[in-house]
């Protein structure tokens, strides 16, 4: 005989009060316990991880900060530091040429230059070759390989920075792009900030008159501004121009292609399919070469068709084709009911798309679209193969300069950082946008 226990039933049901979770599972301590040292194995992994991080970060900091050269304006400023360690204790002194000698006690590693007291740490920058020291005599300083501490030469970046940013844009006219990009960034920031008035108008301004104003500011030739032909535009400026034109052009074009691909009208549908599939199936480099070589064939002979413009058209259509496929994915992800509800309210195709379908489809697709835009921002570096001088090209030209040869490490790090800054901002903004537009369903 088994007895089933049905428990007790309250005659009047009152829900139990909510209790806080156990203390050990919340707060910093709870987090550390749950994530870093839940058991001995994970604790070991945590320790090893910390060790690896320390090794990498300390090495990086030594190169980039502690041993780096910041001051100066020529390659001379970036001679490696050499620590010469002497073997006897001596007092601090000043050599006839003004070099300070400081006390330090360690074992000797190198031959002591004549005239220098032993056992000092000579903190003067010298070269590993005979050098003139105190009293007009020459001393040979032998330096062991591992005592040449090579820090980063940021002097190169400082000296060349203007060219990284502006390319060969004339020095006296550089305020023009600076103003345009600055105002553009401010307006974009204004447009993207919640709760400010007239954001729609700012967006319209950015979309329509602004590019025209920007164009005339860049190229000049009007209102007494000096004409600057666009083969002089370069560096980060060019990178920003190409990517922002490509992005603002590709989004509407891509949406149009995506809608066209789903059209019931066969001619429109087939046209869009051909455009999308063609541009997606060809590498970007090929598109760039084709923009250079093939596009002029379609134009009346003698038309002078700007090189930059050709690149812009090619890149924009290329990205539009990708955007179209991403948007199409978003359209397909929307439940049929959304279309039906909009139809049933009598909205009509364009209002339905604008008010109901696209806002939702684009929201779903924000991560993918932003990935595309991050991709295009980085892909602008490919334009160097058709002879445009973007940021990366300007850096490489700098390294190719005999004075700065061998400093590609510094150049690539800075290029990387600049690209990272832009791409990471885009990525963060997209994450913010996703959170903001998430309406709990």
């Amino acid at each position: 005989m088994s007895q089933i226990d049905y428990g007790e039933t309250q005659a009047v049901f009152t829900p139990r009060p909510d209790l806080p979770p156990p203390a050990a599972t919340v707060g910093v301590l709870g987090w550390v316990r749950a994530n870093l040292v839940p058991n001995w194995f994970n604790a070991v992994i945590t320790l090893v991880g910390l060790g690896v991080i320390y090794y990498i970060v300390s090495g990086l900091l030594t190169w980039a900060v502690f041993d780096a050269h910041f001051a100066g304006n020529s390659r001379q400023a970036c001679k490696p530091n050499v620590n010469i360690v002497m073997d006897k204790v001596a007092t601090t002194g000043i050599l006839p040429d003004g070099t300070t000698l400081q006390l330090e006690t360690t074992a000797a590693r190198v031959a002591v230059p004549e005239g220098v007291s032993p056992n000092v740490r000579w903190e003067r920058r010298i070269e590993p070759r005979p050098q003139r020291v105190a009293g007009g005599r020459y001393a040979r300083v032998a330096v062991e390989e591992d005592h040449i501490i090579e820090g980063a030469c940021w002097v190169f970046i400082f000296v060349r920075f203007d060219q990284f940013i502006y390319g060969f844009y004339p020095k006296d006219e550089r305020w023009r792009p600076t103003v345009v990009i600055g105002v553009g960034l401010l307006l974009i920031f204004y447009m993207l900030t919640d709760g400010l008035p007239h954001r729609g108008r700012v967006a319209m301004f950015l979309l329509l008159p602004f590019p025209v104003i920007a164009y005339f500011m860049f190229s000049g030739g009007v209102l007494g501004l000096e004409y600057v032909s666009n083969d002089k535009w370069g560096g980060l400026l060019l990178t920003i121009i190409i990517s922002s034109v490509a992005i603002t052009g590709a989004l509407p074009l891509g949406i149009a292609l995506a809608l066209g691909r789903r059209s019931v009208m066969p001619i429109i549908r087939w046209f869009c399919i051909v455009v999308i599939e063609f541009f997606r199936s060809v590498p970007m480099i090929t598109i760039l070469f084709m923009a250079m070589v093939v596009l002029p064939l379609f134009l009346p002979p003698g038309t002078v068709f700007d090189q930059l413009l050709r690149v812009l058209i090619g890149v924009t259509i290329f990205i539009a084709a990708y955007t179209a496929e991403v948007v199409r994915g978003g359209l397909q992800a929307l439940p049929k009911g959304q279309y039906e509800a909009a139809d049933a309210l009598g909205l009509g195709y364009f209002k339905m798309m604008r008010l109901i379908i696209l806002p939702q489809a684009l929201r779903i697709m924000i991560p993918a679209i932003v990935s595309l835009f991050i991709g295009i921002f980085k892909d602008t570096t490919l334009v160097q193969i058709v002879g445009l001088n973007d940021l990366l090209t300007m850096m490489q030209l700098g390294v190719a300069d005999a004075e700065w040869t061998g400093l590609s490490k510094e150049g690539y790090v800075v290029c990387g950082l600049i690209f990272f800054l832009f791409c990471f901002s885009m990525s963060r903004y997209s994450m913010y946008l996703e959170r903001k537009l998430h309406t709990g369903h």
Partner: protein
Amino acid sequence: MSATDTELDVEVDQSKMKISDEIAIQITDMNKWYGSFHVLKDINLTVNQGERIVVCGPSGSGKSTLIRCINRLEEHQQGQILVDNVELSNDLKNIDAVRREVGMVFQHFNLFPHLTVLENCTLAPIWVRKMPKVEAEEIGMRFLETVRIPEQAHKFPGQLSGGQQQRVAIARSLCMNPRIMLFDEPTSALDPEMIKEVLEVMIQLAEQGMTMIVVTHEMGFARKVANRVIFMDAGEIVEQNEPEEFFNNPKSDRTQLFLSQILTH
């Protein structure tokens, strides 16, 4: 398929619901195919202004398709559908005219998740009826009060329960001031506790004289509110009658079988 018989403790006075002689919908010899599948066969149906019609039948009998033809969510291939004397054809102008006058409530609500409850209600009046925003919001709030959720106006649909969402969907349709309301299984996706709140709103609507065609398995609602019950099977209207007669004295053997299956649990 499950039929529920939600206990409706509201008194419904059918004598107050006037049916006029004016014809709201006239369907003549209508046929529809999905590819080669003949889904609606020779449908003839006349609905007068002020009628409350419940359409029932087994799954796949074509009842949803029928009411979706009335606002052209589905296209019919043969026959004629007149809604308020406007013929539904490929003429987009006619389709838009009909859709402005016909409201629809779906099984899965189909609210616009990126808009607040109030914006869901004001969207069509503003963009289709070209109504000023302030006026549209006034009307929106009025109908949200009608469906008893004005306090949710500024929430998003995803934050509401199913029953609340369906009531918003009803309010959204009412904001367009439709002459006819179509309900496509409005309570099938709801928990039992929520079915009642939706049905009560629908009863309220019937009492105000709305012409309604309701596809539902809620037989209690049919008994109380409908003036006519239509039974469909295999794409045909098998039988239609007053609810009393329909439930107590079904004429077709197919109707008898259907009723015996859904009414004896």
